[in-house]
């Protein structure tokens, strides 16, 4: 008896969605089943109906026309593409020549600048030598001054 009561209580909870799910499942099954049947029906109609064959013929002829026009269109497009390609090649060559000229100029400038740099370095070396010489002389003169100062002090005493 207790088991029965518990089982009924369980069913109340676990079967709350029972009817909704059943309807959903039936609808889902119907939709998929109908889809399959519709496909079959269409196939059968295609096979049975002679008018469709005629329209297929018309369609095929239209397809041929479309093919022809598309061929000529493709040829024109190809010619245009060829012209565009040639122009692009020409422009590319011009750009390359311009770049080469600029590169040559840059190379020359580099050479000039390098030589100037060399001259500057030589001048710097000379300046350094003279600075060193002058510093040495300055030091010697300072020593002489200090010596004279000491002599002067001796004379005063």
């Amino acid at each position, binding site marked *: *008896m*207790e*088991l*029965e009561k*518990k*089982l*009924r*209580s*369980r*069913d109340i*909870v*676990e*079967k*709350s*969605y*029972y009817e909704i*799910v*059943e309807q*959903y*499942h039936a609808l*889902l099954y119907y939709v*998929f089943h109908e889809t399959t049947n519709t496909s079959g029906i269409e196939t059968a109609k295609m096979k049975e109906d002679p008018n469709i064959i005629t329209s297929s013929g018309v369609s095929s002829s239209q397809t041929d026309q479309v093919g022809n026009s598309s061929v000529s269109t493709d040829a024109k497009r190809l010619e245009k593409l060829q012209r565009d390609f040639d122009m692009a090649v020409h422009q590319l060559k011009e750009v390359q020549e311009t770049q080469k000229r600029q590169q040559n100029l840059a190379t020359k400038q580099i050479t000039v600048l390098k030589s100037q740099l060399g001259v500057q370095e030589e001048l710097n070396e000379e300046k350094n030598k003279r600075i060193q010489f002058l510093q040495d002389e300055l030091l010697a003169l300072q020593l002489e001054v200090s010596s004279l100062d000491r002599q002067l002090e001796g004379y005063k005493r």
Partner: protein
Amino acid sequence: MNKQSNTRDLVWNGSLSISVTTESSPLCYMTNIPRLSYIAFILDEVRKILCPNEKLDNCWLEFEGVPLKSHWPIGVLYDLYTATDPDAPRSPVLWKLVLHYDNFPASQLIPCNEPTTFRTLFFNALKESDYVRNKSASYILSLSNSATEELWTSIQKHDFEVYQRFIPRLRSAKYDQLPVRIYITPDTPVVQESVSCKETLGSMLHKTLPKLFPSQNIAVLAKAIVHGISIPLSTNMNLLNQELCYTDGFVHIVIHML
């Protein structure tokens, strides 16, 4: 008789509403599936609707990251993985599952892509239970082809009128032994025992799982759930056999921690 019939009817007609989705499709498949049934029976139908281009070999169902075993009864899977307390107030049940068709977890699931695979598994379980009960699987083995087909069809279509003809023999226990499977947690191996029909549920669990059931009469740490309801520990095992047995001849018990 009336009591038996009512309880058996309620057990047989118990069902769960499930909804199955998949990552790549916005479609949702919903159905009511009997608690005594198996995922293997609906997996192909779910596949045909949600991802018809995929092979059945790669399809598997998942609930919260756990792959669902196709060869366990649906009711056992639900009780075990949702871990809901049947005695506490509960909200309506719509079990949400996810269908996958790649990275089949071969280490956790048995592929049931062939029609005969699951059937073989089921009948092996049936023979196993018959052997525990009667020291021989001769009844299952002696069934004629037509009777075997009838039994299998009644399991597949959940037809009680046909299945009940097999019940007296399937649930007989000449040697007073009853096969029991106990599911503790999803990560714990299943405990399989043979118990005497004269025992109570409490004494059986106290003997098998003494740490979880220190008492034979009172559920202190855990309780036993069968078919989504908690069973008093004073219940006789014979009653479990007659009223609450599953179709494969086993009594599947899910342990719910208190």
